[in-house]
Each structure stands twice: as structure tokens, then as C-alpha cells.
């Protein structure tokens, strides 16, 4: 009953989205306002059906309706309610349905927010969104159907993948990733519409940029959550392994970041339009490629839990979109491009170009490294690997260069800088560079790459801080109240600027923390009997014994350790091994003690009677990465909030004080 209700909703949404696609493109072609109105209605209807189908699935999960095939596949009466609820994205069929649901929410929101604006582009945009919607409806309806009917429903099911149950981060990482991935559909639709129209007006930049920034924020946080999860669960003390699936999440992030920067040049200078559109198209294509990589089972990876028949279908969609995008770009890119004007390499524009070059190079390198083994295997029939040592040696120089221009870029003015201007902008931050590098030396950093990273980081930090607070300082000097100047400059009218520099500040911390944590880590395997101690790098751990814990869905063995430094106990840690009914091998869960300086990370290798083998990993600054990425996300959100007040008060005289405008705006 529930299964057939779900199936009907999905079939309807397939019908609605295909019709809506045709309607949207036809309305765009004919420039018909009636057609556009109908396309909008179809967009809302599609969203309604998708969200409805997802709610039906959630209902089936929560009520343990094992007559629905997906529930039979992942449901269990033994697991806690939150696990049951997040089971929606624990396996392939459900996660594709969840994808459809998020796509529905995005399409409805984008259609609603543009209801009175950008009429010229909207029909094509909606057509493109619904085209993507039609593809995913088809996936849910046929090859990855979660709504099959089970003839003889069992009384209980196996429960979701134990990795999902093992850590709460697995419950939040996928939604963020999907919000990032699926969100790229919206700017893709806008960019495609601009290409179809053969024009990209100044006013249309706002929705394009905003629709790119929101999924960018989600994707940024999702990538971090994925790394954090790996760190907290996998037990090897790292957060990034250059695994194909990790790379899949990074690729669209890189192109989207490049696009956000080139969009700024587009906005200020009217150039790089075709290029920005190309980057937006690429970001969407890379999300589809990522889905293929994650979901088709062609890659060996810790993350691709599912082997499935949807690979070929996604590949066909990928090929269609790729051919369509390339054709459109080839036909229309010239009509977008106005006469580009660049005032020389030592300028803000010059740095933006270098920024884009580096991000695209980064993307290209990661893409090559990820798909190369597949190509070699397909062509030459022999297996090879491209792993961490390759990526480290290729990507570290690019990352360091990015950190360098992160410092130099914002210091330079738009337009050609005179020698005097360049000197005044570029020399003072050397102080910051020297201070941070000296701090590093004082804390024992000796690796030359790390020192360089610290120096670039210090340089970038000083520039970022200066640019971030400049408007506030100037207003305070003029005699404005301190609180008023801060609130108005950073959170009201200068919000976008402030948000961007917050993102930069976060990025500086992330890159420095990655550099320090990867080069300064200590790792040692020790074996201890009960009561014995070992000392690693000044940290003493004492094994005090094991403990068994039993929960309905799993049993765990904990090993207790007291951690002390200089004879004083600082904490106790209890890494554990969890055994689930479904899994043959137990899953280890490390235990971590985090301080500002660094982490103490214990992970069990094995337990034999009275003795335990434990991996002790000491990593400085690693915790900074998670929080700095959240800072980046917060900056993105602050920059995203539309600034309606500022738009209302455009006509104004030079004499009017800023305070008066605020009153007028309210």
C-alpha cells in the first residue's frame, strides 16, 4: 500500500518534470509569459511530489513497514530512532530519493525567489532544473527503485550499514554533501539559461552568485565533516587519503570556488563572463561525475558501500549534459564576452586570473589522478594505482601558491598599480609573515615547506585582518561610535565584504593547520599489558584494563588508558572495538583528546587477553581544521544574506552621513 503510493508519486513526478522541461524550453524559445507561468507551476508540482515521496518513505521507515523493499533492505526494530530516520540515506535507493527531495526543495525555493525577476532567463532555467529532475525521477522510478513491494514482509530487518550507526557524523555528513551537490543544479540552470539567451546581464549576476555560494557553503562543510568522520572512525589518525570518493567531493568545490572568484571580476569589470559560465557548468558536471564515481562501484573505496546497476544510467546522463554544455558553450560563449580589459599583472584582476589558473590546475590534477587508473585499466588491461604520494607531491605546491596569492591578492588595488602603491601594499605584511614563521620555529617546526607555509599564512593573515577591519577603523577615526561602526560595517551594509574576508581568514587557518598537522605528527605502535605504561613524545599512557559494553544493536570492548604528562594526569581515553550483528570484523572507534595545541589519538590495533596493541598518534593543530572550516561556512552565510537595505538607498548625495541612510532605509 505504502509502496504503491510512493511509486505513483515518483511516476507522477517523472511525468511532471519531463512535461515541465519541454514547457520551460518552449516558453523560453517563444518568450511566452503564459508558458513561463505554467513552467513555474510544474516546478512547484515537481517539488511537492518529490518531498511527498520522501515523506512517504520516512513514514514507512519509522513505522517499520517491511512490505516496502527499501525498509526491508535497511530497516530494523533493534536500532535507535535517529538511526531509523537517517536510514533514508544509508543505502543507494534511499539516497537517490533523498537527492530528489533536496532537488525539489532547491527548485521550489529558486522558483519562488525569482518569481518577479529575471523573466528573460527563468523559463530556460526552470526547464534545465526540471531536466535534471526528470533524470533523477527516472532513476528512482526504474533502476534504483526504493518503493518495491515485498510479497512476504519479514518481521524484522537487518538494519542499516554499521558504519552509519557507528558515528553520529555519518548522520550529518551525507545531507550536507547532498545539499552541496544538488545545489549546483540551480546555478547550472541559470548559466545554461544565460548561454541559451546568449547574454548575461549585470542584474542576473546576483542570483547566479548567490545560488553558487549557498551550495558552496554546504559542500565546504560537507568535505570537512567527511574528513572529520574519517579521523574519528577509521583509526589511522588522518582525515584525508586522496580516496576517489573524497576526490569526487573536492572536484566541484574547487571549480565552484574558482567560479565565485571569477564572478567577482565579472561583476566589477564586465569580463570573464564566458569563463565563469564554463566553471559553473563544470561544477555541475563534476557533481554528476562524483555521483557516478561514488555510486557505480567502479572505484575501490572505503566510502562506496554500494554496488549497483545505476552506473550506466548516470554515465548516459553525464554524457548528455556534457555534450549539451560543450555545444552551448561553443555556440554562445562569444556572445557573452564583452571586450576584456586587463590592466597588467600587478593588480587585483591579475591575481584573480592566477587564482583561477591555480584552482583549475588543482581540479585538473585531482581529476587526472583519480580517473587515470581507470583509463589505464580499460585501455591496457593492467591495474595501477595513483595515491597519496602522487597527490601530495603535485598538490602541495599548488596549495602553497594559493595561500600566497590569498595574501597578495586582497592587498593589491583594482586596475594597474603604480610601483609606489604596490610597495605600500605588499611590504608591511612581511611583518606578519616573519612573526608567524618565528612562532613556528619557536614551537619546533623544522620542515622547510612548513616554514614557508607559516610565513605565507602570516602574510595572508595580516592582509586579511587589515582588509576586514579597514572600513570600521576609518569610520571610527571619523568619529563614529565604535559599536555602530562595527555593526553597520561588518553585519549590515558591508556584510558581503566582511563575510568574504571571514572565509579568507578561515582558509588561511585551514591551510596552515593542514601543513603543520601533516608534517609534525608522531605515530607509534605500542603493546601494553594491564598496568603497564609507555611514553611517546612526552605523553605517558597507562593501560588500566578492558570493559565490555552491550547495547541492543552492538557489543563493544573498551580499553581504558590514563594519559599523563610530566607525571600529572591530564585525561583518560577509552578507544573501543564495536561489533555489529551484520559485520564479520569489528569496527574500531578511536578516542581523541583535543587541545588547542594538538590531539592525542588512541586507536586499538588488537586485544589479546590481558594485553592491548594500540596506535598512539600525536598531531598538532589538527582540531583547528574543523573549526576554521566552520568559520569559512559562517563567512559564506554572512556574505550570502541579501542586502536589501543597501539596494533601496542607492540614490544619495555625498554629504548625507551614513547613519541617516540607515534610518531612511528602515
Amino acid at each position, binding site marked *: 500500500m505504502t509502496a504503491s503510493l510512493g511509486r505513483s508519486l515518483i511516476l507522477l513526478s517523472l511525468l511532471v518534470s519531463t512535461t515541465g522541461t519541454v514547457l520551460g524550453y518552449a516558453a523560453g524559445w517563444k518568450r511566452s509569459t503564459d508558458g513561463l507561468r505554467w513552467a513555474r507551476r510544474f516546478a512547484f508540482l515537481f517539488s511537492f511530489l518529490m518531498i511527498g515521496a520522501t515523506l512517504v518513505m520516512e513514514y514507512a521507515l519509522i513505522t517499520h513497514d517491511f512490505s516496502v523493499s527499501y525498509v526491508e533492505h535497511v530497516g530494523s526494530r533493534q536500532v535507535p530512532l535517529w538511526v531509523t530516520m537517517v536510514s533514508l540515506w544509508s543505502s543507494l535507493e534511499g539516497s537517490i530519493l533523498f537527492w530528489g527531495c533536496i532537488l525539489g526543495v532547491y527548485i521550489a525555493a529558486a522558483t519562488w525567489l525569482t518569481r518577479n525577476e529575471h523573466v528573460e532567463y527563468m523559463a530556460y532555467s526552470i526547464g534545465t532544473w526540471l531536466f535534471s529532475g526528470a533524470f533523477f525521477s527516472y532513476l528512482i522510478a526504474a533502476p534504483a527503485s526504493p518503493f518495491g513491494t515485498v510479497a512476504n514482509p519479514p518481521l524484522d530487518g537487518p538494519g542499516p550499514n554499521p558504519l552509519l550507526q557507528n558515528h553520529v557524523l555519518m548522520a550529518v555528513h551525507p545531507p550536507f554533501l547532498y545539499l552541496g551537490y544538488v545545489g549546483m543544479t540551480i546555478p547550472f540552470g541559470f548559466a545554461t539559461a544565460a548561454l541559451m539567451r546568449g547574454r548575461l546581464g549585470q542584474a542576473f549576476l546576483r542570483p547566479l552568485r548567490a545560488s553558487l555560494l549557498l551550495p558552496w557553503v554546504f559542500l565546504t562543510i560537507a568535505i570537512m565533516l567527511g574528513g572529520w568522520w574519517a579521523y574519528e572512525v577509521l583509526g589511522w589518525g588522518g582525515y584525508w587519503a586522496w580516496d576517489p570518493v573524497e576526490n569526487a567531493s573536492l572536484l566541484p568545490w574547487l571549480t565552484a570556488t574558482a567560479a565565485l572568484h571569477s564572478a567577482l571580476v565579472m561583476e566589477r569589470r564586465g569580463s570573464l563572463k564566458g569563463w565563469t559560465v564554463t566553471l559553473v557548468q563544470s561544477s555541475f558536471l563534476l557533481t554528476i561525475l562524483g555521483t557516478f564515481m561514488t555510486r557505480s562501484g567502479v572505484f575501490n573505496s*572505503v566510502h562506496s558501500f554500494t554496488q549497483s546497476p545505476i552506473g550506466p544510467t548516470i554515465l548516459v546522463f553525464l554524457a548528455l549534459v556534457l555534450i549539451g554544455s560543450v555545444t552551448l558553450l561553443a555556440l554562445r560563449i562569444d556572445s557573452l564576452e564583452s571586450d576584456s580589459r*586587463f590592466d597588467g599583472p600587478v593588480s587585483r584582476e591579475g591575481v584573480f586570473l592566477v587564482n583561477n589558473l591555480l584552482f583549475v590546475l588543482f581540479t585538473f590534477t585531482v581529476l587526472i589522478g583519480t580517473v*587515470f587508473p581507470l583509463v589505464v585499466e580499460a585501455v591496457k588491461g593492467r591495474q595501477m594505482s595513483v595515491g597519496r604520494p602522487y597527490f601530495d607531491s603535485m598538490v602541495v605546491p599548488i596549495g602553497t601558491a594559493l595561500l600566497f596569492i590569498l595574501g597578495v591578492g586582497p592587498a593589491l588595488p583594482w586596475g594597474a598599480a603604480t610601483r609606489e602603491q604596490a610597495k605600500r601594499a605588499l611590504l608591511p605584511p612581511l611583518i606578519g609573515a616573519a612573526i608567524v614563521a618565528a612562532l613556528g620555529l619557536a614551537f619546533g617546526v623544522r620542515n622547510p615547506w612548513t616554514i614557508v607555509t607559516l610565513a605565507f599564512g602570516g602574510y595572508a593573515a595580516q592582509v586579511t585582518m587589515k582588509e576586514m577591519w579597514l572600513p570600521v577603523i576609518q*569610520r571610527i577615526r571619523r568619529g563614529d561610535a565604535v559599536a555602530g561602526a562595527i555593526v553597520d560595517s561588518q553585519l549590515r551594509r*558591508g556584510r558581503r565584504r566582511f563575510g568574504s574576508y571571514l572565509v579568507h581568514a578561515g582558509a588561511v587557518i585551514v591551510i596552515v593547520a593542514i601543513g603543520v598537522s601533516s608534517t609534525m605528527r608522531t605515530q607509534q605502535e605500542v603493546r601494553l599489558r594491564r598496568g603497564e605504561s609507555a611514553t611517546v613524545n612526552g605523553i605517558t599512557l597507562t593501560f588500566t584494563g578492558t570493559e565490555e559494553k552491550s547495547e541492543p544493536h552492538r557489543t563493544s570492548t573498551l580499553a581504558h588508558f590514563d594519559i599523563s604528562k610530566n607525571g600529572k594526569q591530564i585525561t583518560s581515553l577509552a578507544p573501543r572495538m564495536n561489533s555489529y550483528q551484520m559485520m564479520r570484523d569489528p569496527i574500531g572507534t578511536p578516542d581523541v583528546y583535543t587541545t588547542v595545541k594538538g590531539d592525542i589519538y588512541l586507536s586499538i590495533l588488537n586485544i589479546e587477553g590481558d594485553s592491548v596493541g594500540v596506535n598512539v598518534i600525536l598531531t598538532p593543530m589538527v582540531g583547528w581544521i574543523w573549526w576554521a572550516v566552520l568559520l569559512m561556512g559562517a563567512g559564506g552565510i554572512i556574505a550570502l544574506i541579501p542586502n536589501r537595505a543597501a539596494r533601496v538607498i542607492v540614490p544619495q548625495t555625498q554629504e548625507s552621513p551614513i547613519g541617516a541612510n540607515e534610518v531612511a532605509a528602515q
Partner: protein
Amino acid sequence: MKIARFIAAFLFATSLLAQEVKVPDAEQFVGRPEGQPVSGAMLDQKTNETAGMLRCPVCQGMSVADSPSEMAVNMKHQVRELIARGYTQDQILRYFERSYGQFVLLKPKFQGVNTLVWILPILALIVGIIAIFSMMGKRAGGQPVDDAPPAEGAEGSDDPYLAEVRKLTGKQS
């Protein structure tokens, strides 16, 4: 019965011990050690470094250094033993390549088709640099057309809001 179990356990334990140090045919495959024997903390560090260059053959894309699987643990012990005997990283990688093929090398060798994976990004860099220079060159040839949006007289500044603040505070920078 008890004795039989004891013997079995003893055999198992000795087999484990034997396995730890067994590095079959190392000398035959890659010759005599070319480096100095290593011990202590340096041995740990070098073991992790070299094990990080090797792919665990039975895992899902993890390195020997990171994987908890039995096979990876054994390989790691072998790496450790070889380093302790004074084999260089290069020799050790060649040793494992003999046994498992190029598949175990996480850093592809610079030979055959594999060179592409190293060269293509560098080609891309060169193409990108040329593209940027040609864009810069455009300015000399073309007429400067001011199609930038009139951002409240913010020409030469970096954003409208800052320009406004500067205008009001009478600062030019």
C-alpha cells in the same frame, strides 16, 4: 586434549613470530641492502613513510601504513624488517612490485603510459600561463572599453561599500 590445544597454540604463536620476520627472497629480488641498518624511533618513522607508499592489496584503496587489515599489518612488518636490515626505500618498493605488480605502488612510476599522469598537469600549467599572458596582451592592442558597472564611483577601489566609506571619511588610498 589439553596438550593438543597447547601444541596448536604454540605452533600458531611460532608461526606468527616466523611470519613477522619472513621476507622471502629479498636478496634474490633486489640484491644486498644498499643503505645502513636502522633502529629506534628512526625505524618507526621510516617504516611509516615507506608503508605509506604501498597500497594494501586486499583493502579498498588504503595504504599499508593506514590499513588495519591482517595483510597490511604483515606487509608493514616486512617493510620494517627490510628497513632494519638496511634496505633503501627504492629497493623495498621494487621488492613489493616484484610480488604484487605496479598495483601496489601508490606513486606511479615515471615510465610508459604512466608518464602522462605526471606530464599532463604540467602541460595544463603551461597552457594556462600562456592563456593568461595572451589576455594581458589584449589590453595593449584593444581599445580600453569601460563596460564595468558604474559602482557608485568606486573605480579603482575594491568594493562599493569601502569606496563609500572612503568618500565620506575623505580618505583616498
